[in-house]
């Protein structure tokens, strides 16, 4: 593993307790981090102290939930410079008056997270700049993840905002700006994203991403499933661009840490091996569609990237039996061992790895050294590192802004600590850097796969343990809470789970990297030309299944 940066200093629990002082009314420790309960009126005060004094500059996630007697908002804080240094700030509010101070002035990323909490749970946030529904239609009645929600109630959904944007009534006559709907059905939005754009001539004045067109209740589905088997198929469908195994790992890691399950080493190698194949497939799609977005390259680049994805999907199909929705990881291991005959499988994978450098070379010839491509990408969609941190950006988006942050190294899991590879960062802060990061990560992934392959080949036959001993019915301790994340293809994919002693989670919250990354779109595009908006959106590489969940 690369040595990377020096870690920032760890803040001890006592130091945090001292910093929060009187404002902490109780302790509510989670399995991953110490938790401090504070008053709803002290939120900004405490968060400012934690950010500026203790250095917790990454608000990874905001979880909201309802108990029988109260609402609760949890801010999961950590540091970009030291991921394992975590703290949870728990803010309870009463059922009668669910109002809490907003954390948005401290962490910009809390904006959308709190809107989601308002939308699904029904907690209101004071001082929030724009508290309205985010995932569900604005005319929706009730808050579906709150306790007393009646799912059979009829609902009305309007279509007014979808009026023809080019009609005269959408011109703002006073300021001579024009309102333009991009999406939800548009080839450049990579799915069903709706971007409300205000233009002044060709310049973008205001961008408001409108999401929720693919909000298919993933959290509800997971809360209805049992830990042991029923949750695992759903992660495949969050980030569905063939990164299924990376997502499955997020759930596997959370539940294994919660129920204290040790995964056999051999299974960890298979996991690492297959997850990195998924990363390659995912980055290939990002590359192909991005080339399609910025210079209409439907012939060569797009088809080449899909050709390579087909190869990867073939290998994964041999391993898991499926092309996209793998459902291959199990709690405590994987479903089955490598396919027989093993030599054939190894040879196939090795062929892919052997051909990859030449292909990457070809992509560099076609894309990154292409003059048109560079004109579209260099110095467009600038995302400064400080801004990226404020918005909670992670993954290739953060690394393209020079933020050296990768959970595989910073919060080690799987077999990554035992392998030789590097975290890729680029200092251009622009669309071009993000593409370069993805392309280099493909090479790094290939390195990891190569090493895993050698390990798997030499692994003694009588020691191929693929599954730990896990009870048939998993019931973690009552009130155990955990927030765990892994490095998915798009960035930090976190899962918060709370157990109530049964075999199903009482609350299952997904922290999606795309959700946070997409928030930064406004910062990247306002004041730029509209074609750069399309390029910036493409370079964020969002997947709407994961944004909306």
């Amino acid at each position: 593993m690369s040595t990377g940066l020096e870690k920032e200093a760890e803040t001890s629990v006592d130091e945090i307790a001292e910093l929060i002082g009187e404002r902490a009314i109780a302790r509510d420790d989670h399995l991953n981090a110490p938790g401090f309960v504070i008053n709803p009126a002290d939120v900004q005060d405490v968060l400012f102290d934690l950010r500026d004094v203790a250095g917790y500059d990454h608000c990874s996630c905001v979880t909201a939930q309802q108990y029988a007697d109260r609402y609760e908002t949890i801010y999961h804080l950590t540091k970009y410079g030291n991921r394992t240094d975590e703290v949870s700030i728990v803010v309870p509010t009463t059922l009668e008056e669910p109002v809490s101070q907003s954390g948005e002035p401290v962490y910009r990323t809390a904006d959308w997270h709190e809107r989601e909490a308002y939308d699904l749970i029904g907690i209101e946030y004071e001082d929030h700049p724009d508290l309205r529904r985010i995932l569900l239609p604005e005319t929706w009645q009730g808050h579906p993840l709150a306790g007393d929600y009646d799912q059979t109630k009829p609902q009305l959904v309007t279509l007014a905002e979808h009026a023809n944007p080019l009609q005269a009534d959408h011109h703002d006559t006073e300021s001579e700006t024009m309102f333009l709907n991009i999406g939800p059905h548009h080839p450049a939005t990579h799915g069903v994203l709706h971007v409300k754009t205000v233009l002044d001539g060709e310049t973008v004045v205001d961008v408001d991403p409108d999401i929720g067109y693919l909000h298919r209740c993933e959290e509800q589905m997971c809360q209805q499933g049992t830990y042991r088997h029923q949750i695992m198929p759903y992660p495949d469908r969050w980030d569905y661009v063939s990164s299924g195994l990376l997502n499955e790992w997020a759930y596997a890691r959370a539940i294994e840490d919660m129920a204290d399950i040790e995964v056999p080493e051999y299974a960890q190698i298979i996991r690492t091996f297959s997850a990195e194949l998924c990363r390659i497939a995912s980055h290939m799609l990002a590359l192909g569609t991005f080339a399609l977005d910025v210079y209409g390259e439907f012939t060569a680049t797009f088809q080449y990237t899909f050709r390579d994805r087909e190869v990867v999907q073939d290998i994964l199909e041999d391993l898991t039996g499926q092309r996209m929705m793998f459902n291959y990881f199990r709690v405590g291991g994987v479903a089955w061992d490598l396919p027989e005959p093993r030599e054939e499988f190894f040879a196939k994978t090795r062929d892919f790895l052997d051909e990859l450098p030449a292909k990457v070379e070809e992509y560099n010839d076609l894309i990154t050294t292409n003059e048109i491509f560079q004109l579209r990408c260099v110095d467009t969609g600038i995302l400064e590192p400080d801004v990226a941190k404020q918005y909670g950006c992670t993954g290739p988006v953060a690394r393209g802004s020079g933020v050296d942050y990768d959970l595989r190294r910073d919060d080690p899991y799987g077999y990554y600590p035992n392998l030789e590879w590097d975290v890729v960062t680029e200092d251009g802060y622009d669309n071009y850097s993000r593409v370069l990061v993805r392309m280099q990560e493909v090479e790094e992934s290939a390195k990891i796969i190569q090493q895993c392959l050698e390990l798997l080949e030499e692994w003694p036959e009588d020691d191929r343990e693929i599954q730990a001993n896990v009870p048939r019915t998993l019931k973690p301790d009552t009130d155990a809470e955990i927030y765990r994340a892994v490095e998915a293809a798009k960035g930090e994919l976190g899962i918060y789970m709370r157990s109530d002693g049964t075999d199903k989670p009482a609350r299952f919250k997904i922290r999606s990297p795309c959700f946070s990354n997409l928030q930064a779109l406004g910062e990247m595009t306002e004041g730029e030309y509209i074609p750069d908006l399309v390029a910036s959106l493409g370079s964020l590489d969002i997947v709407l299944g994961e944004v909306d969940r």
Partner: protein
Amino acid sequence: MSQDPKQSIQESATPSTDTRDARMGAGVDDRFNSKLREAFGASPFILTKFDEFMNWVRGNSMFMLQFGIACCSIEMIHTYAIKHDLDRFGAGVPRASPRQADVMIVPGTIVSKFGPRMKRVYDQMPEPKFVVGMGSCTISGGPFQEGYNVVKGAEEIIPVDIHVPGCPPRPEALVYGVLKLQERIRHGESSPVVVKPYELERFGDLEKDELVQKLASEIDEDDLVMRYNWADSP
């Protein structure tokens, strides 16, 4: 064994194709002998009904709507792309505008917010139009059927000609579905008419029930709305 010669041996009974062979000339490959060519035989014209001819043409030149919703759209792109290459079957031209498209592949879960938009896109397509529902979500809501926000199948909103099951269906399955659609189109079968519980209506025309009264101040009377009766949906 009898020494007498067999009485049944005669010259071949197949019709003479000398004229046709002469017309085609030497050296023409067998693969040019399409079904059409066999039907033509030596005569250079056929008789058909104009309708049948149009159906045949429609089935063999379909413009697909470029319409990505969820997971299935990735497999749909794979179907268009290299290796599976849907274009081999005369159906590989994705059009970004519904006004240029004949066929809409619905690749993914439809949720409440997207339902009216999909209906709008469908309405914008010119007649005759056809719909292929791709994946379990467009059949019943699939794995998300119990979700509070998920429409239980595309057929609640638009008529669907072909259902391709799977989660997601493999590209081969989608190709098969498209071929089946072409077969139906060639035989002149149009979209089935279904009862649609969800319809776009003007808000002002709705019955003044509790929900409508509550939203009256928020919604313009002329706005189109879609009403989801979750209790009645399958």
